[in-house]
Structures are given as structure tokens and as C-alpha cells.
């Protein structure tokens, strides 16, 4: 009998799936009791704020902080000279906690203060005097490449943060022998993940040099290592504990490192806990959007539609500091080459520094940006060859058993079925009068093998508690996408137990297994597989302990423990037996899933992922022929994500991901005015509202993948990839003209229709 009599929730089965989403925080969230970073409070806590450069590029000549210290309630004021200010970075070490001598964008962190409340901290910022000497600034990446351009980072001549020249096969010969060559230029602006909770954290340092940071991250274990190194602390002294995460979408893989480092430094300086949070405006102006891209692309085909070769010249706009932008540029510049069988590829990609907001990543990792360009070009080719765009795709699409042009090993693939189903469901051959139809196909890695070639997998721990229940310890992250729901399903299925008997323990780097985190579509595929293996190990340990206890062989079948004599044993009996016998140990199964190494070479040829997810989306749109106004009627999303283990979670990923793809295609994009973000509010940077979302139909082609747990593959990222391309092709179908720069707005459609231009 529970101590408090409480009504049990009546859990009705979800309409579309076999189980409801088992996010362990769901009841706290619905009642307003879930604690996010922004809700955290610690006794004696101080509040930190950051002074930012008002110049896009300037020399910092002098900083006077005396006035700030005179503000009542101020406890610490830090500038670059007060700290060791070690350089750090994710790919390129081009950042320091505070700008030293030079500020490189409007928003660059110049000083940080901690005070007893936010008002005093703000007053202190106003009291800091800084003398700047403005320097010439560069906002356009093509200008940054010019010889006479000012150098933004001293050790980076030509302002190139990362570059890549890649050739596969014999592209020049293929172009020379082609029946048709089509080409075009496309541009895609920076977009922000726009998670609804602005990033917040509390840093707590103590006199034993322990540093605990409370903040929600997609990759807390990786961030912990970066922080320990940047602050020159022993790794074991740094711990990250995650409150509930108010959305991530790639933006919280590394979150806002500046905020974590500065709150930590302020806490180490004052000995008090320090809370910092970004405003929504700061999210847009100093948070980390995804890189913008300009793509010049060419494609060679045979008369019958066979793809022969593709050539791309890609410039991505890094902004002032690099973070993950090199990796995003890499995915952007090559992933789409594996959607189809294209034997010859030539790509030049350059990531270029400018004096604008630094960039990072967003769900889809640039794959969706390039997909828009390449899928648009395929439709151009179809038109020239008078071929059906669907048939052209079916003729060339990647199939199971293929090793793609970059060496991706495609073990399972239902892309052709996805294309056919998407076309069938949208009414490809049964079109409505006055509507435009477009289709697009995508691939996404599901569990990276090459982000860290030596660390490819995941681990998990499954524990039998003394009361007979079980706990799964995982370092993977849940933020409403359904990862823990999937893990509970996987563990329950492995153990033959009811999901209600399982609990997930997570979000504490001191306790949970190390993980690369929620990225690269890897949670279900890799993290889930580790959970499966840990559960299998626990099952074995339970059977062994029970056999020892009863003196006869015991098997765990259908959720029960049965001895050969027929005697049934309770789980808590076995747990207690082991606990007493070992004076306090619990039965714990550890599982690690280590995917086979990849032969990935220095030219980036080779398998990069455990498996690959595929999708084809079809769009039905209507364009007002007089004004260019676009109405997206319908998106049909057909996916090969293998076996779907958590149907309600998968449904949430489809609706949410397609809606973000709609935003990417039709609404979103940074606008700059001389380096200043001109649309730094949710009123000006528009994301889709409930009134904007079209009808979304979805369908899963459930083939079993040989690698994923119970045949599952990732879904969260690939779902956004084909959307902008499908809409772009549908708009071109409706109007006869093509908009080549995102977002596809009414104004651009109008200008393209009537003025033959598209300059954004």
C-alpha cells in the first residue's frame, strides 16, 4: 500500500502505436514541475553576464573595469588579462574564453561579471570602459577569399578555416563524354536550431577544485573533456549534471561553450555558484547557427538518364570562430553523393572565416542544405531529358548491397520503395489541377564510425535492484525525441519484462557510462544496441545467481525465473541473495557495442557509419500566379529507418522534423546588416506556427537492418533532409521557374516568375 493514495493515470494505448512514449520526465513536464537549466537555483548563487563587442572587427586597446567593481553587489569582473585564456576548439583551436586584443564579430565576449542579482550584473557591464580601434571587417565569404582581404585569424592565411578537394573516378572524362550537362548556383542561409529554451547553466566550484556544471547537453561527456582542458583542470574534477533539456536539434551537442567556461571561471574566482543564461536575442546573435552555403553545381548524364558525374564548388560561411563547422561542411559537401549511383565526383569545398556570428550545427548537419541544391538540379536534368523526375531517381538510386562512390557500405536500403510509395501517396500520377508536385530523396548516417575512429560505439549498464526492478544506466540523452522510450522497449524486450519494471538513469557524467551523445542519428542504433547487450548480460548474471541460489538450473523466460523443477523464483530474492553473498554488490550487466572498424582512409573514402537511413518526401503545393504566395498543401514522408521500435516517438520525429524542414525551406534564414544579425527575435526570425504546418502523411518501409537493435535505424535527422528539396521542386513544377536560394518566399517566387531573377 503506497504511503499516499493517488490516482493512477489511465494509460490508454497511443492511437498510432503499440505503446505511449515513455519519456521519464513527461509527467513533470505536463504539470510544469520539470526543472530546466533556466529554473535552477542554488543557495548563495551569483548571476553572471557578458560584455560583448559592438564592433564586427576591432582591436581592443584598453579595458577599465574599476567602475564595474564599484557597483554594489558585484563580486567578480574578468577580462582576458585576468585568466590564462587558453585556446580551445572542437576542430580548429581558434577560440579563447574571452577576446584577447581583438574582437572578431558583433557579440564577441570581452568581459564577464558576476553579481548578487542580474540587475547589478547589468549595471556593472555598463560601467566597464573599453577603448576599441575598429578594423576593416569582412562579411562576404567570397570577399574574404580575395588576396587583399584582411586576415581574421593570425594563423589562418586566406581566411580558410578548412578546405577539401576531392575527386572520385574520372569526372573530367565523364563530363566530356556526357549527353547532357546541367548546372546551377544555389545559396542557403545560416539557420538557428531555435530550441525553445534559451541555454542556461549554473557552475559550482568548490575549494577542493571540483567543478560541477548543471546544464542540458546532447554530448555532456565530450563537453566535459573540452572544459577540463580549456580550464586546465584534471578531468576527474569536472562533472556535468543535466537538468531537463528544452530542445536541442544539434544546437546543444556542444551548447554554448563560452557560457559554460565563463560561468566556471566566475565561480572559480568567487567560490560561489554562478548562473548564466542567454536571452533569446543572444541566442540569435551569439548562439551557434549552422553555416550558410553557396554551391555551384554541375551534373553529367547520359541521354537515357543515367547519372555519370557531378562537380561542386562549395563555399561555406564560417563566421568568426569555427566550432564544428568543418565537419558540417564535410557532410554538406559529400553526403548527397551517396543517395544515387554517381560514379564520378569532383568537389571543392572551402569553409571561410567572416566577421559574423560563429557557427556550429543543426539537425541534418548540412545534409538538407545540399539536398536542396542537388535535388533541384536533378529535376532540371529531368526536364531537359523529358523524363519523369520520379523515374530518373528510381533509375539511379542507391540500393542494398551497394558500396557508394565515397565507400559507404549500404547493408540495408529501401530507397526505391520509399520513392515509389511517396509518389503513390501524393498522387504523382493523379494530380490536382493547379497544384505543383515535387519529390526528393535523402540518406543520413546512423551512428558515426569516424567522428572518433577509435571510439565508435556505446556502452550501457543494466542493474538488478534489491526490490527486483531493473535500472538501465545510459550516457545517451533524452530531450523528448523518444530515446529513453526506445531504450526501455529494447531492454524490456531483451529481458522479457513489462516496460514498467524498468527505470532509466541518466544525465550525470560521474555515474553514467561515457557517451558521444545525441548526434549523428546514433541514439537508437548504437546506444540502443549497447542497452540490448547490457540487458542480455544482466539476464545471464541473474540466471547464474538464481541457479547458484536454488542449486538447480534456472532460466529466465517470458519475464519469469523458473528452475527446472518448475519452481518460480522472484527477482528480488535473487537480488537479495547476491547482495548478501557479496556484502553489498548488485547484479550489474555491462554491455558495449563496438562496431567493426572502418577502412576509412585519408581521402575520406570508406564506410563512415554503422548503417544508413533513407527517406523520400513528396510535396504538393499551390502558388498564387499573381503574387507568388506559396501554400504547401501536403508533405508525404516515406522512410526506411529499419524496424520502428518506438512508434509514438517515431511519429513525433516525423511531424517535428518535417515542420523544421518546412521552416528551412520556406521561412528561416539569418539576415545580416554589416555583420549585425538583423532578425534576432522570434518575430523577425520566423519559425513555423500551428497555422503554417501542412498536412503531413507518413509511411515506414520496415525492412530489418542487420546492425541496429531489432533491425532499427535512426530517424531524427534524416527526416528533415528531403523537405526543402521536395518543396523547391514542387514550386518549380507549379510555376515553371526555379528559386535557387532558400528560403523560398513569395517575394522570391514572384521575382523569379516575373523578373527572371532570384537574388534574394
Amino acid at each position, binding site marked *: 500500500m503506497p504511503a499516499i493514495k493517488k490516482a493512477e493515470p489511465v494509460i490508454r494505448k497511443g492511437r498510432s502505436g503499440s505503446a505511449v*512514449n515513455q519519456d521519464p520526465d513527461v509527467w513533470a513536464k505536463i504539470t510544469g514541475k520539470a526543472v530546466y537549466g533556466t529554473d535552477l537555483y542554488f543557495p548563495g548563487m551569483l548571476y553572471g553576464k557578458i560584455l560583448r563587442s559592438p564592433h564586427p572587427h576591432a582591436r581592443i586597446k584598453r579595458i577599465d573595469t574599476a567602475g564595474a567593481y564599484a557597483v554594489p553587489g558585484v563580486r567578480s569582473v574578468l577580462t582576458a588579462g585576468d585568466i590564462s585564456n587558453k585556446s580551445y576548439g572542437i576542430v580548429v583551436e581558434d577560440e579563447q574564453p574571452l577576446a584577447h586584443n581583438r574582437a572578431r564579430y558583433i557579440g564577441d565576449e570581452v568581459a564577464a561579471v558576476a553579481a548578487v542579482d542580474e540587475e547589478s550584473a547589468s549595471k556593472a557591464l555598463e560601467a566597464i570602459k573599453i577603448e576599441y580601434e575598429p578594423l576593416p571587417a569582412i562579411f562576404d565569404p567570397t570577399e574574404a577569399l580575395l588576396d587583399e582581404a584582411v586576415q581574421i585569424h593570425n594563423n589562418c592565411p586566406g581566411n580558410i578555416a578548412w578546405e577539401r578537394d576531392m575527386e572520385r573516378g574520372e569526372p573530367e572524362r565523364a563530363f566530356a563524354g556526357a549527353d547532357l550537362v546541367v548546372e546551377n548556383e544555389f545559396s542557403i542561409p545560416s539557420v538557428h*536550431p531555435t530550441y525553445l529554451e534559451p541555454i542556461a547553466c549554473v557552475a559550482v566550484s568548490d575549494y577542493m577544485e571540483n567543478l560541477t556544471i548543471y546544464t542540458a547537453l546532447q554530448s555532456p561527456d565530450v563537453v566535459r573533456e573540452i572544459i577540463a582542458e580549456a580550464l586546465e583542470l584534471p578531468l576527474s574534477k569536472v562533472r556535468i549534471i543535466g537538468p531537463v533539456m528544452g530542445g536541442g536539434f544539434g544546437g546543444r551537442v556542444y551548447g554554448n561553450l563560452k557560457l559554460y567556461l565563463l560561468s566556471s571561471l566566475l565561480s572559480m574566482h568567487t567560490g560561489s555558484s554562478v548562473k548564466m543564461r542567454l536571452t533569446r536575442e543572444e541566442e540569435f546573435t551569439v548562439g551557434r547557427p549552422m553555416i550558410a552555403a553557396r554551391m555551384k553545381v554541375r551534373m553529367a548524364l547520359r541521354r537515357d538518364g543515367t547519372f555519370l558525374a557531378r562537380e561542386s564548388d562549395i563555399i561555406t560561411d564560417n563566421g568568426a570562430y569555427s566550432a564544428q563547422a568543418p565537419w558540417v561542411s564535410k557532410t554538406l559537401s559529400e553526403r548527397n553523393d551517396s543517395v544515387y549511383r554517381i560514379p564520378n565526383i569532383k568537389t571543392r569545398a572551402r569553409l571561410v572565416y567572416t566577421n559574423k556570428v560563429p557557427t556550429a550545427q543543426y539537425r541534418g548537419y548540412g545534409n538538407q542544405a545540399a539536398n536542396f541544391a542537388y535535388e533541384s538540379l536533378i529535376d532540371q536534368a529531368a526536364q531537359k531529358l523529358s523524363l519523369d523526375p520520379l523515374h530518373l531517381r528510381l533509375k539511379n538510386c542507391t540500393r542494398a548491397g551497394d558500396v557508394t562512390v565515397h565507400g559507404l557500405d549500404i547493408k540495408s536500403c529501401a530507397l526505391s520503395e520509399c520513392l515509389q510509395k511517396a509518389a503513390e501517396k501524393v498522387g504523382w500520377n493523379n494530380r490536382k489541377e493547379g497544384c505543383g508536385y515535387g519529390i526528393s530523396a535523402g540518406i543520413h548516417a546512423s551512428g558515426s564510425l569516424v567522428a572518433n575512429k577509435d571510439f565508435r560505439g556505446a556502452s550501457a549498464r543494466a542493474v538488478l535492484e534489491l526490490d527486483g526492478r531493473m535500472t538501465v544506466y545510459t550516457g545517451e540523452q533524452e530531450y523528448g525525441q523518444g530515446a529513453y522510450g526506445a531504450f526501455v522497449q529494447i531492454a524490456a524486450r531483451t529481458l522479457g519484462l513489462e516496460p514498467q519494471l524498468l527505470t532509466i538513469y541518466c544525465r550525470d557524467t560521474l555515474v553514467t557510462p561515457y557517451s558521444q551523445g545525441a548526434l549523428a542519428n546514433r541514439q537508437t542504433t548504437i546506444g540502443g544496441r549497447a542497452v540490448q547487450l547490457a540487458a542480455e548480460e544482466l539476464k545471464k548474471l541473474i540466471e547464474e545467481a538464481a541457479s547458484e541460489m536454488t542449486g538447480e538450473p534456472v532460466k529466465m523466460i517470458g519475464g519469469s525465473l523458473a528452475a527446472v523443477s518448475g519452481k518460480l523464483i522472484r527477482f528480488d530474492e535473487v537480488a537479495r541473495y547476491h547482495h548478501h553473498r557479496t556484502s553489498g554488490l548488485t547484479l550489474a550487466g555491462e554491455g558495449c557495442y563496438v562496431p567493426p572498424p572502418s577502412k576509412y582512409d585519408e581521402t575520406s573514402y570508406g564506410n563512415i557509419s554503422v548503417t544508413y537511413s533513407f527517406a523520400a518526401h513528396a510535396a504538393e503545393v499551390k502558388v498564387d500566379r499573381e503574387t507568388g504566395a506559396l501554400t504547401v498543401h501536403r508533405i508525404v514522408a516515406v522512410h526506411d529507418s529499419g524496424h520502428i521500435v518506438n512508434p509514438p516517438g517515431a511519429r513525433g520525429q516525423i511531424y517535428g522534423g518535417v*515542420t523544421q524542414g518546412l521552416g528551412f525551406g520556406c521561412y528561416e534564414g539569418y539576415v545580416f546588416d554589416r555583420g549585425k544579425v538583423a532578425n534576432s527575435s522570434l518575430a523577425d526570425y520566423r519559425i513555423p506556427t500551428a497555422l503554417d504546418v501542412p498536412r503531413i502523411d507518413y509511411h515506414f518501409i520496415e525492412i530489418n537492418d542487420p546492425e541496429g537493435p531489432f533491425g532499427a535505424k535512426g530517424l531524427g535527422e534524416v527526416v528533415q533532409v528531403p523537405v526543402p528539396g521536395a518543396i523547391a521542386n514542387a514550386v518549380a513544377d507549379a510555376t515553371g521557374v526555379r528559386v535557387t536560394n532558400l528560403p523560398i518566399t513569395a517575394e522570391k517566387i514572384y521575382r523569379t516568375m516575373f523578373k527572371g531573377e532570384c537574388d534574394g
Partner: protein
Amino acid sequence: MKEQVIAFELNGEKVETYTDPALSLLHLLRSRFNLLGTKEGCGRGECGACTVLVDGRAVNSCLVPAGKVRGRKVYTIEGVTAEGLLRGAKVHPLQEAFVESGAVQCGFCTPGMVMSTYALLNDNPSPSPEEVREAISGNLCRCSGYKQIEEAVLEAAQRLKAQDWQDRNSGKT
């Protein structure tokens, strides 16, 4: 501005506080009353995460000065939760429908979504899907695509009618 005494009704209880009347209702609720269920997503009335009811109407609490709620009824997500508990349920049927429809993902928009749709169902017990979308058009959600939220509200409307659920505290007139 000078601090003043402000008395109002909060989730069915009479309360009195001494505060700057220009302080936003959002901050008053969060810092003075420790009601952290009301979230700040932008602080400028653009995202709806801070939606509460004032005399039964859904408003962005970040835009309402504390002085404006003097003598009025303020109702928050904590009030809705308590309403469910007082009726012997785990949560309010609207909240239950959100959970079952998969309408809660990261959850940061959720309290605001619940408040906007709570107000809708008070005014219009049988809304159409279009009316639901209209009611939440000021509440941004980045996870869901809104479909599951729309389904949850339509389902909740059925359940509230079936259970003859009467709201007593929100200030509905």
C-alpha cells in the same frame, strides 16, 4: 518604480505581495511565488511559453506588468495541475490527453500550450481543428509540428464533456 502592495487571486487563493508594479507578471510568478512552471522563451511576447490566464483569458505573462493584475484572477499551470489532484485524478484531463497523444516532447512550450488550450476549451467546449490551431498560433513549439497537440486538445474536449468537468478557479466569466 516604487514598490506597492498588489493583491490578487492566484490559482484560487488570495495573495498579496509588495513589488514594483512594472515588474512583469512572469517574473513575479517565478521569483516571488516560485511558480516555475511558467517559462520564459523570449521575454517579448513572441513565443507563448509564458502563457497564463488573467480573468480566464490567455495572455503572455512577460508582457503584463504586475500592477495590472491587482484584484484579478491569475491562473497558471500549477493551478491546472492542482485542479486535477483536487478531483482525485492524477492530472487534469487536458494534461492527460497531452501525454497520451505524444504532445509533450522537450516540454518547454508545454505549460504555455496547456494554458492557451485550457482557455480555449473554457470558451468553446467543442472546438474544430482549425479553432485549436488558431488558439495555439501564438505558442511556438519546435519539437512537435503541432499535430499531436491539436489531437490532444480535441481528445480532451471529448473527455471534459464526458466527465462534466467544471472549472471553478481560473476566473472564467
